[in-house]
Structure formats: structure tokens, C-alpha cells
């Protein structure tokens, strides 16, 4: 079992994630060409201006109106992207399999960042339950997506701490991690792919066409 998840499953997950993402992006490019005014409207300058204003916490009015959501969401996303790439446990695997080595996070910091993803995810679950405007548009799929995102971090943490039997936990960790990667191109987790483009397009329409600010 371990041999399978450690080998072929991880391969499958990466191929589906990378291949699926490339196909999706290519599909979007073709679709964008069908709308005569979309690509000519895109502006590097104004797209970037908008991205910067929405990526620096509290620099847009709506972020200031929701400081807690903004802060949690910001930490959640940073930890979510950085931890899997730079955690020591993964760095060792890269080195063993490919012979490449890079900088890795100190153990304690990695633990905190992992827990940040878990608690950030739980915060979003909680928010979906208590905020009426969010509960109104939430379905079981939204909870499932949050579970898919939290699971590899929670299981990774448990495996690392060895609070539960190590080997089974490690297998579950790899399976949930693979599921997460596979889900990205095909669910609303694809906002990871689209964010830059939707933001840049709105920024371009506001900046280049309407001469106004969108933050």
C-alpha cells in the first residue's frame, strides 16, 4: 500500500494537477479569444495595479470592512502555498527522488504554519455556518472542498507528531494530498489558477477603460 501511494499515486496526482491546469488555462485562452474585446482590454499595468492592491492586506475597502476575514484568509493562503513546498519532510523526498535540494522551513515554524491552515479552514467552516449571507449560498460541496483542503495538512501534522500510528497516517496523508492536487483544476479550488486573470481583467477594465480604481 505504502509503495503504491508513495510512487504511482503521487505521479498520477502531479500529472493530473499539472496537465489539468495547463489544459484549463489553454481552454480559457481559446474562450477568451472568442470574446473580441477581452484580450485587447487586458493591460499589464492596470492588471498588476489591481493585483497589488488586492494582495496587500487591508489595502482595499472591502478588506478593511472585514479585517478578521482578511487576516485569516491571508495567513491561510500563504501557509497553504508555502508549507508543502518548503517543509523538511517534503524536501527530503525531493532530494531522495530527484537529487534536488533547497531551503526548508524550521520544524517549529512549519508546525505553526500547518496548524494555521487547519484552523483557517475551520474558521471558514464556522463562517459558512454563522454568517447568513454565506450560509445562504453554501452547499455540501463547499464543506467538502474545505475538508479536501484541510485533510492533508491535518494528517501531515498528525503523522509528523506521531500522535497516532505513523504508517497508516502517512498513507492517509499522501492520499488526501493527492486528492487535493487532483481537485484543483476541476472544482472551485481552480480559483488558484483564475485569480490572477480575473483580477487582472477587472483591473484592466477599471484602469484602462473606465479610468477608475477597483479597490
Amino acid at each position, binding site marked *: 500500500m505504502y509503495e503504491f501511494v508513495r510512487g504511482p499515486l503521487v505521479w498520477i496526482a502531479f500529472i493530473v494537477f499539472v496537465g489539468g491546469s495547463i489544459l484549463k488555462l489553454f481552454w480559457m485562452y481559446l474562450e477568451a479569444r*472568442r*470574446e473580441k474585446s*477581452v484580450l485587447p482590454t487586458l493591460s499589464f499595468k492596470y492588471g498588476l495595479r489591481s493585483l497589488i492592491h*488586492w494582495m496587500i492586506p487591508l489595502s482595499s475597502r472591502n478588506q478593511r470592512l472585514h479585517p478578521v476575514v482578511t487576516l485569516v484568509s491571508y495567513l491561510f493562503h500563504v501557509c497553504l502555498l508555502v508549507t508543502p513546498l518548503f517543509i523538511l519532510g517534503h524536501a527530503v523526498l525531493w532530494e531522495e527522488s530527484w537529487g534536488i535540494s533547497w531551503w526548508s522551513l524550521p520544524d517549529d515554524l512549519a508546525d505553526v504554519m500547518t496548524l494555521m491552515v487547519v484552523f483557517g479552514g475551520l474558521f471558514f467552516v464556522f463562517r459558512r455556518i454563522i454568517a447568513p*449571507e454565506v450560509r445562504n449560498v453554501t*452547499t455540501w460541496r463547499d464543506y467538502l472542498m474545505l475538508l479536501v483542503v484541510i485533510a492533508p495538512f491535518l494528517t501531515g501534522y498528525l503523522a509528523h507528531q506521531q500522535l497516532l500510528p505513523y504508517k497508516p497516517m502517512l498513507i492517509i496523508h499522501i492520499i488526501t494530498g493527492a486528492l487535493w492536487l487532483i481537485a484543483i483544476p476541476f472544482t472551485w479550488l481552480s480559483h488558484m489558477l483564475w485569480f490572477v486573470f480575473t483580477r487582472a481583467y477587472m483591473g484592466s477594465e477599471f484602469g484602462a477603460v473606465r479610468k*477608475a*480604481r477597483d479597490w
Partner: protein
Amino acid sequence: MADLADAQVVDPGVDDQIKKLTPERIQRTIQRVIKQESAARLKVYLQTCVHCGLCAEACHTYLSRDRDPDYAPVAKVKDTLWEMVKRKGRVSPEFIKNAARIAFTECGACRRCSMYCPFGIDIAYLMMTVRRICALLGVVPQYLQDTVNSHASTLNQMWVQQDDWIDALIWQEEDAADDLPGLRIPLDKEGADVMYSVIAPEPKILAQLIANMATIFNVAGVNWTMPSLDGWDNSNMAMYSGDFEVMGRVERAHWERAMQLKVKRVVMGECGHAYRGAVYDGPKWLGWKEPPIPMVHAVEYYYELMKSGRIKIKQKIKEPVTVQDPCNIIRGRGLHDKLRWIINELCEDFRDVDPRFEHNYCCAAGGGVINCGPNWKPSRMKSIRVKAEQFERTGAKLIITPCHNCHSGIEDIIGTYKLGMHVSFINELLIKCMEMPEAAKEPA
């Protein structure tokens, strides 16, 4: 749940029309719009939304109706497009009726929510897509559809006939000449620096605004003209009904008239949606990146005339004033600083609104909402309480707004919420405050 009184509003354009729908027609139409007419934007927007509800804070309808979650922008998409896509167009006539009420009367396409979505999802565009589906199904509020019928047959919004148009111009020319002897409204003057275009409600019900503008052009010594034939109306209600074929025809006629007159620029009166139609929604549908001739909004033009000293101010308005930032020229053109500069030149006591600039609340009349007719007015008034409260906080007596829809909407707000204020266009104030040439003072 939607407000029961709103759900029971009688509108033949919706109620009678849905009786003619068949399941096949509904499905075919929805699939056509979603699969053929739309492409990257619609699909990516629907895939990107994570249902976070952060757009709610943007919407005046949601805020005014005690934060009822059903009025949040994302909820409006959920109750319309999400279902249409999920059920592959297999929705009932009753569903279409509900969707039409949401898209035409509870959303003004003011695009404030597009500024509040962290991903920059253009939610107003999604609502316009719902309107498009409704329009293709023939389900459009009756009063709004009437303006579109007028556009389709007369190329103007208010059934103004050719002789009425000329008559209104001559009448206003005579009126303005009372104060400024020798004043003319030059018609069809080829190669003029400026073509002035208006919206059809001006000759129909607010003709004085044309005389005001003629006076301003004459005092400033502008080489200007107005078209005598179709294409003089720059308004476009078809843009808001979802009848984009007619929208394109109206915009093309307007720009072709300007090209035919070989003018250098088109200056337009104080209207918001006409700017949007002429500068981006129209060109986008026609496949143009931008209009063939620069379009200058009245606010930009007054600023230019005043800043360069061609129009001088001799006295200021004394009563406390505030402002309504129209969505289509502020969020749609960033004219808020110029607007405030003009107001400060004209008025002694200006009290700004909060929130302001791009973040200002919509008037709830624009986007075709007021054009849906009197039956929808009670609903519209429920959706705009935040605007009334915002004005009240300023303590002003006069509200200045350079937009026809804002103007009418705010008159309704003042009446309903008993604000004891009044509304004015800029050109009405400019006429009172500007310096007239010596000749004007001599008895005629």
C-alpha cells in the same frame, strides 16, 4: 425569501409573457446564451466563485433591506444563473419570472459589487446575462420594453418624431436667445469642433436643459453643432433590457452621425448610462475596442471650460449642497475629482457624502430599474434606504447630480423618505452662476 409584496407586483411584460413560454424554448434560449453568446468571462466567473459572500457588503439592495441574505449579489446569481447552468436550462416559466424580477428590479448593474469581490468577478455582467436570457424569451418589464420598442422604431428612447425634435430645438433656441441675443443652435455643421448629443427625455420633458447648454456653448464661443437627424439621441435602454441587437444599432447610429458630421469630439449632456453605452457597452458589442471619436462627458467639458476661463463664475450658490456620484461616470470614468472641483467653484457650502467616489451607493434608478415603471417603485424605494440615510447625514439642502437616472431616482427618494431636499443638474446651476457677456445685459 424575497419580499412577498415585490413578488406579487403586476407587470404584463413579465406575467403575460411567461404564459407563452414552452420548456423547449426556455432551454434552447438559455443554452444559446450560455454556450454560444458567452465565452471566457461567464465560464471563468462561474468556476472561480468560492461562495464567500464578501460581495454582500457592496449592494445597496442588501444593505437597505436589513441585510437580508437573499439580496446579496451572490444570492442573486445563485437564484438565477447557477440554477440555469446546473439544470442545463430546464427551468420553469415561474423560475424565469423570478429571475426577471431579480435581474431587472433588484439589481441596477451599478458594478459596485464587482469592486468588492476579491477575485474581481463582474457580478453585474452576470446579471446582465440573465437579462439577456429574459430579453430573448420576451420577458421584460413592460415600461422598459416600451423604451426599447421606441429605440427600435425611432432610434430614440421616447418616441420623439423628426418634426418634434427640430421643433424642440428651435423652441429652445428662441428661449435662450431671449437672454443672449443672436444665439443659435447650429444644426448639421460639418467639421465643427463639438457635436452635442442628448438623451431623448431632454427634448421630451426637460427641454430647458438644451437651452442652458446652448447658452453655455455660445458664451464660451465654442464651434459646435447638433444633428438634425437620427443619431442625436445618445441614450440606450436596450443595453439594459438585454436586447443587444437594438443596443448595437442605436450606438452605431449615434457614432455614424458624428462621423458623417466630421466633428472632432462628441460632448454629451449630463447622463450616466448614455456614457456607458457609447463608450464601452456599445463598442464592446460591436466589436470595437473604443469609439471612433472621443466622447466627452458634460462634467469633463464644464471642467475644461471653467478651468481654461472660457466660462467665468460671478456668484456662488449659498445653500448647503451635496453630491450624488453617478456610477457610470465615477466607477465608470473616474470623474469624481473634476465633479467636486466644479461644485466647489459653484457652491459656497459643499458637504461631501460618505462613502464616496467609486464607493458611492447607487441611486437605485439607473441600470434600467426606474424604467421598469411605476408598479416597481415601492420595491425600488425599499432597496434604497441607505442612500436616503447617506444624504440625510450630510445636512445639505441641495443634491447635485450630473445624471438623469440619478436625478429621477433621487427625486423619488426625497419624496418617499421626506428628506426636504431638492435636486439639480450642474448646467442649471452654471446658468445661475456664470458671467454673461455685456451684450446680454442690454434690453432686447
